[in-house]
């Protein structure tokens, strides 16, 4: 049991280092922050002074070591645009993003999981087909298309809701709906197939043959088994709470972490982008770890296997 988690924590740390390294290298190879921030008309000596000030002249391996040294001291760098610490810029945007992603997550779970279970239990029925068709539509339509469609209907045509901004709770409705629908669709499909898989297992027949009423066969025999694959997708969704709204925030001009990321990448504001990526990698990895813990909790077979894995 202890080893099961030790191995996973080790892997998690490695994943974070790899993500940060990759982001570091790609960002530095894909454009010059000095040019992006000061503009192409800036005099060469100004550009040179900017590069020197931010250490962009140093060899990349030196910058890399420097960066990790700073992280070890808890320094995540400063924004090249306004000189403020990157972490401050990012942290002040997080509440705005969570104001969208947390309610959206709740809706995904509340809609997707019951719909999937219901569809599986009534396989082949009209409702099953309706749920599946909605689900397929829900995750094949990209979120920016859905967002624009919702804006067109509810903001432009009907005028019920604002099309963008962050002035009141009414501004949050369309972004939250956009985020929820796609996720609920994915969850519904996933839950349905997990349930169908479990319902076909011999132990379900055993439970019925014992005289367990069907309702209890579903709740105490099928659901605990179907929860195992479903938790995977839930963990993935928790991992996207912080940076999963990039597109939606952009469409609805919602000043969250996603919009900050878009602006920072466009400006090659290295410290800010790296700070966001580090944060995203950490939430992803943490949620994966939680999923692994939950697996061990939900599936006694994994607890045993983990001892040798």
């Amino acid at each position, binding site marked *: 049991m202890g080893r099961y988690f030790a191995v996973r924590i080790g892997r998690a740390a490695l994943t974070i280092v790899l993500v940060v390294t990759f982001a570091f290298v790609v960002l530095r190879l894909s454009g010059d922050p000095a040019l992006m921030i000061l503009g192409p008309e800036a005099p060469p000596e100004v550009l040179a002074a900017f590069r020197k000030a931010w250490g962009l002249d140093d060899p990349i391996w030196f910058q890399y070591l420097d960066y990790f040294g700073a992280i070890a001291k808890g320094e995540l760098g400063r924004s090249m645009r306004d000189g403020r610490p990157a972490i401050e810029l990012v942290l002040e945007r997080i509440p705005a993003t969570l104001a969208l992603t947390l309610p959206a997550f709740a809706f995904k779970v509340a809609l997707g999981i019951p719909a999937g279970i219901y569809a599986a239990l009534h396989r082949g029925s009209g409702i099953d087909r309706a749920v599946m068709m909605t689900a397929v539509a829900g995750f094949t339509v990209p979120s920016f298309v859905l967002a624009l469609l919702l804006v067109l209907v509810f903001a432009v045509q009907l005028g019920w809701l604002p099309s963008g901004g962050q002035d009141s709770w009414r501004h949050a409705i369309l972004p939250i709906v956009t985020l929820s629908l796609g996720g609920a669709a994915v969850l519904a499909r996933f839950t349905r197939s997990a349930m169908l898989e479990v319902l076909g297992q011999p132990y379900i027949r055993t439970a019925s043959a014992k*005289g*367990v009423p069907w309702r209890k066969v579903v709740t105490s025999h099928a659901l*605990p088994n179907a929860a195992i694959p479903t938790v995977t997708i839930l963990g993935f969704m928790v991992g996207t709470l912080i940076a999963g709204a990039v597109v939606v925030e952009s469409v609805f001009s919602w000043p969250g972490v996603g919009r900050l990321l878009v602006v920072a990448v466009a400006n090659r504001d290295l410290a800010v982008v790296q700070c966001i990526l580090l944060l995203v990698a950490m939430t992803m990895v943490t949620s994966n770890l939680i999923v692994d813990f939950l697996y061990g909790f939900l599936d*006694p*077979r994994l607890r*045993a296997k983990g001892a040798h894995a």
Partner: protein
Amino acid sequence: MTPLISIRDLSVAFNGVPVLRGVDLALQKGEALGLVGESGSGKSVTWLAALGLLPRNARVSGSVRLDGREILGAPAAELDRIRGGRVAMIFQDPASALNPVLTIRRQLCESLALHRDLSGGTVKAEARRLLDLVGIPDAARRLEAYPHEFSGGQVQRIMIAMALAGNPDLLIADEPTTALDATIQAQILELLSTIRHEMGMAMVLISHDLGVVAENCDRVAVMYAGRIVEEAPANQLFADPVHPYAQGLIGALPPLDGPRRRLTAIPGTVPDPASMPDGCAFAPRCALAEAPCGRAAPTLAPIAADRAVACVRAEASRRALLGMAAE
């Protein structure tokens, strides 16, 4: 005497394809009946249908009476009381027949809570007693273990304990030893027969292993392509099979004593359920088939006090067999 359970003209079709085509079967209290036949002949489907355990795409018709009371199409609550309480079932692959995420205690006590009037502490004590009874050592501690922590033979013992939890009158053992090693097989069969005698329980032993059936059953029914083709006391069936298919099955067994001989295989394969021949389903593979065999499917008809055969050539087949023996 009313039989414990009697099945009349039981038919099952999956999505319009008939797999069970009119099965008649009766079982007395305490009797052990063997059900043999190739895979797909309808042995398991008969009992899953009788207990309403088939998926919804199965169309079931006919009659199943338990103590004279019709149970086919009975309300769910009544079926739930019968399943496990009057008729219990154990299955072929013990490893997947227990819920992997629940402890043995949860699964055993669930059966006890459903069918026995026991309260808190006594439930657990009874669960321990049942594990002891089926020969799981250190029962108190093992109750808290999960199915994957047991061997295949042990899991089948636990399945048997679970089946006994409701004090059933009938145990359907569906290929209970097929997935187990030969030595474990013998232990499980012995356990089943001991318990059956102690509890006076009737048993249906579904198997494609004729040896297993011969040793453990009073009476045997042979199934072919969704019908019973011959029914006889075990010793008579093995000594003197009448239906050509039963003869083929027994001819394919090596004799333990006596001279070595070439084993006879039944030529051909079981017909596809979607395209059954008009007459006798065995006719295309039968050495004795004649024109009348292709016309109508023969019904199970008595040929002696407690024997029945579904074959229009039963007499000829019997003579052919005697002739073979005389050679």
